[in-house]
């Protein structure tokens, strides 16, 4: 559903992504792993429309089979097409309530029933958020904020959910919980592009994985396969 060909991204004058090509099929979990500064975020931000300084081809295929080039599209176009992203560092709006954060995630939708339905779905996935619905986002714990960030991205009803470092700053037990929910979201039919430094957790749930080093893909393959790869084990999984 998403085809990236020869993507080059420049970020603050740095050539952050070099000739990245990857393909994400409908219903898959695809992960892009790599060290801090490898260019993972720049790549995903280009797909989200947040970075405009890129060259290459990004093509999104809609459920009806029509393909759209994403070149030059602003984020609101991406959201309307069905691509949503939970950004690195969660970026919860601290002065807005949990419910307001979620409502903001549904900004492009106008049907009240659909929004209500998505909100119920999000609360079903993350019951903690329902308890805290009228609490300010800034008062949530790190794990709850991450859940809110994922829930907020789901509020636009996306086909493709992109998650930038959902494990960042979370205790291992919370990482397991969040990744369990990611897998659950995928089972219910959403395609997921997961950008992670936590290679182990990401590879375990991914159908397909790409390893990014200094902006270029150095390895790719099935998630389980890379988990056994000696190079990956040495560089990302602690031997």
């Amino acid at each position, binding site marked *: 559903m998403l085809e990236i060909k020869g993507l080059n991204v420049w970020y603050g004058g740095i050539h952050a992504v070099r000739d990245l090509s990857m393909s994400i099929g409908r219903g898959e979990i695809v992960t892009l792993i790599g060290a801090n500064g490898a260019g993972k975020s720049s790549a995903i931000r280009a797909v*989200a429309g*947040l970075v405009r300084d890129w060259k290459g081809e990004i093509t999104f295929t809609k459920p009806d089979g029509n393909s759209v080039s994403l070149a030059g599209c*602003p*984020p*609101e176009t*991406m*959201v*309307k097409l069905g691509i949503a*992203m939970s*950004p690195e560092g969660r*970026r919860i*709006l*601290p*002065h*807005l309530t949990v419910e*307001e954060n979620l*409502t*903001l*995630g549904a*900004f*492009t939708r106008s049907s009240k029933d659909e929004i209500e339905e998505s909100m119920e779905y999000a609360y079903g996935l993350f019951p903690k958020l329902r308890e805290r619905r009228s609490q300010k986002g800034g008062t949530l714990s790190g794990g709850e904020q991450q859940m809110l960030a994922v829930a*907020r991205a789901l509020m*636009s009803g996306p086909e493709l959910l992109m998650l930038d470092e959902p494990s960042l700053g979370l205790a291992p037990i919370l990482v397991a919980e969040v990744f369990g929910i990611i897998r659950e979201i995928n089972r219910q039919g959403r395609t997921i592009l997961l950008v992670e430094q936590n290679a182990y957790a990401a590879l375990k749930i991914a159908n397909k994985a790409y390893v990014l080093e200094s902006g270029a893909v150095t390895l790719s393959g099935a998630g389980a396969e890379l988990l056994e790869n000696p190079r990956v084990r040495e560089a990302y999984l602690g031997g």
Partner: protein
Amino acid sequence: MGINLSFDMFMQHLINAVGLGSLYGLIAIGYTMVYGILRLINFAHGDIFMLGAYFVFFATVRYKLPWVLGVLTAVAGATVCGLLVDRIAYRPLRNAPRISALISAIGVSFFIENLSVVVFSGMPRPVVQPPLLMKAFSIGGVRLVPLAILVPAISFAMVAGLLWLVYRTKPGLAMRSISHDIETTRLMGVSVDRIIALTFALGSALAAVAGIMWALRYPRVEPFMGIVPGFKAFIAAVFGGIGSIPGAMLGGLSLGFVEIMSIAFFPRLSGYRDAFAFILLILILLVKPTGLMGEKLEDKI
């Protein structure tokens, strides 16, 4: 300095203070909203206030439109001008250093003032007050004109409407979100430029209404009439806590109160009238730089 004020006199001054203060508050809201979202002091805001007053003058005096129609035309005209200021002077500089936008703000303010001198002429023009609004009546020993009640009533009604929009609607939610994190708001599919334009439109409409009521209170218009009220409203916005809409109204009312009452109690100081606003500004910056209702901001201009 004789301090002998009867209760009736005090009430008279109080009503006067609330009227003036609510006008400062209406203008201050425009400063505070734009600052809250863009961290920009829109120096042209006082000039939009002036344009509102001029447009109503031309609509009613020159083109003899009925008052209601004249007011609507004037508000619409000033709103369009506010949108144009954003589109032409600020939007191209959205990603430029903040100081560039500030310089552009000062430039566009001078431009509007001087263009107004060319187009409207620099001569002050008298505004004809509708007799209905000026028919004096008494409550107890206090003599009033309907205008003195109408000004704060309209102001408060508009602020109530604005608060509803900002806190109860989706565009309002987007506004509150942009003020904290533009990029994340964009990621949610919000067209940020449109929300910013909406902010300018609302601020300009309120300034135009204030300009019209100002022209009715002090029945004349001239091209530089926006400068001093603009400065004072900006001070009111800072005093109330810049970024906060209720704060802007509170700041405006406080300033109106201080100005009117200090002269009422110390008539000899009336020559220093405009200085009180600046004294208030210095005091609040010394004691509580975030203002009465302001949130903590990391960096200010």
